[in-house]
């Protein structure tokens, strides 16, 4: 749990040096890791019944649908 506080610090220090588009990927990966720790351990998702875990997975999946499919419109407009 203390390590999550450390990851915060690590996040900003490192990212000050990256240039390329990797920046956002690294930052978001760290964020996902932190969020997963919170969900699994603080929120006891690891020890919760299957249907709770299904609710969590479903909401993330639905958010992903919205982001992915909408951006796929914008990003493929130049293709044809």
């Amino acid at each position, binding site marked *: 749990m203390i390590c999550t506080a450390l990851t915060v610090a690590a996040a900003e220090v490192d990212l000050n040096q990256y240039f390329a588009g990797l920046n956002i990927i690294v930052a978001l990966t760290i964020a996902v890791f932190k969020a997963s720790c919170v969900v699994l351990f603080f929120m006891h998702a690891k020890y919760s019944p299957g249907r709770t875990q299904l609710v969590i997975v479903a909401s993330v999946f*639905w958010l992903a649908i*919205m982001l992915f*499919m909408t951006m*796929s*419109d*914008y990003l*493929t407009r130049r*293709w*044809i």
Partner: protein
Amino acid sequence: MPREHYLNATYGIRSWLLTTDHKRIALLYLISVTFFFFVGGTFATMIRIHLLTPKGLLVTPETYNKLFTMHGVAMIFFFLIPSIPAVLGNFLLPIMIGAKDLAFPKINLLSWYIYLLGGSFVLYSFSTGGLDTGWTFYTPLSSVYSNSAVTPAVLGVFINGFSSILTGLNFIVTVHTMRAPGMTWFRLPLFVWSQYATSIIFILGTPVIAITLLLAGLERMFHLGFFNPQLGGDPILFQHLFWFYSHPAVYIMILPAMGVISEIIPTFARKPIFGYSFIAGSSIAIAVIGFFVWAHHMFLTGESTYAALTFSLLSYLVAIPSAVKVFNWTSTLYKGSISYDTPMLYALGFIGLFLIGGLTGLFLACLGLDIHLHDTYFVIAHFHYIMVGGAVMGYVGGLHYWWPKITGKLYPEFLARIAAIILFLGFNLTFFPQFILGYLGMPRRYASYPPEFQVLNVMSTAGASILALGYLLPMIYLTWSMRYGEVAGPNPWPGTGLEWQTPSPPPTENFDVTPEVTWEPYDYDNRPDLGLETKGAPSLAHGDD
């Protein structure tokens, strides 16, 4: 001494306005959604009268914009979306699973008050300048340029969304945690499956329109730029976000009606439903796949060709589970012992009209055809076939089917059958000509049209007057029956669900003793307690459980 039940258990206005009994809340919703049905219906009447002549008979074009907008907002958000879930779902869900109430009864009551609050804001908007943006609130018209009362309307719809969310939450939790012993998932009535699927959409879709309308409202109030091209924003983003909810919303409107039909057909064909697990699974499939198709409303916005292709293909896919249901209903009818009671008439009408509406959806999902048909009366006819010919007929049929349970009285059967036929004929006369009008190119949302379209428009208006009669009649005789109708027993049809095992009307706690379920759903052959002649020897396995 009259028996005590939920209607007479306590008296006084406070016992109704502060009730936590799901059955009373259902009736509170019944009154409110009927009120909004009248509001939306009034605007529809004005539209149809206006369109009797090519130049428009009644109002200016600016006012006409307000008429169709307010018709849409009232009907979609305040009538169709709550109708079956909040009235029939609230009343029946706990009883059908053998529970005493929903999981969160106070939240149930809260959701009704939230509905009223949202409705008040919208009514305020209607009466202080109206709303002319279309029910779709496209930006930047709604967020920047419109001079109508957009902000209160958007606020009202936003608030109303929470009513839906709380209802959906309540239903999902209830189905998971409050089922009676022996009521396994695959013994649930199909109406419960359809409510569960609908609730998934409530939970995952409604928040998105909430935030979208909030952003549009904020943009209007503070001149922000999310959706305004002049400030670098993107109106298409609004459309993506809007339709992400609003397409699944149409499945919110139809899935419960399909659930009603799945209850009515086995009862009046006196046969188990064909393919129970397929119908249950297709409800979930429609709810899920329905979230992947939204941009078929945006084919003509300049979205990318690849996106258009994907959404078109997925839209064809989502038709498959609906077709599965239609096949299963029809197979249930085959070799059934069919009686043409009023609920069955509505169910049969539903199947035919939903079929037409659904198939015409496929026309629209085809990219090439949509170029010609988009924003024409073809689209209007398509969705009215599904929403009115489908959802509303399911709602009215369901009201008839469960009326004896809700009120303890029977409605006048002969008059009811006539009304059903009037409704069916009026509906088709109203909306079938609109398919032709759309095909011939008449645009939607226009206050005038070329003179060669007048005959079809007049037919449509004539049909609308017959349709109105078809709605008025049940409102009158159902109300009449509450006082003067014949007393109904617990199981007048008879039906096989748990709801028919309690008295009509039910006591406040639904069941005097918690039921234990040992039979499969719709199993007419093995229910000697229903007092029917069984076809073959009863199976020994049941009853020994």
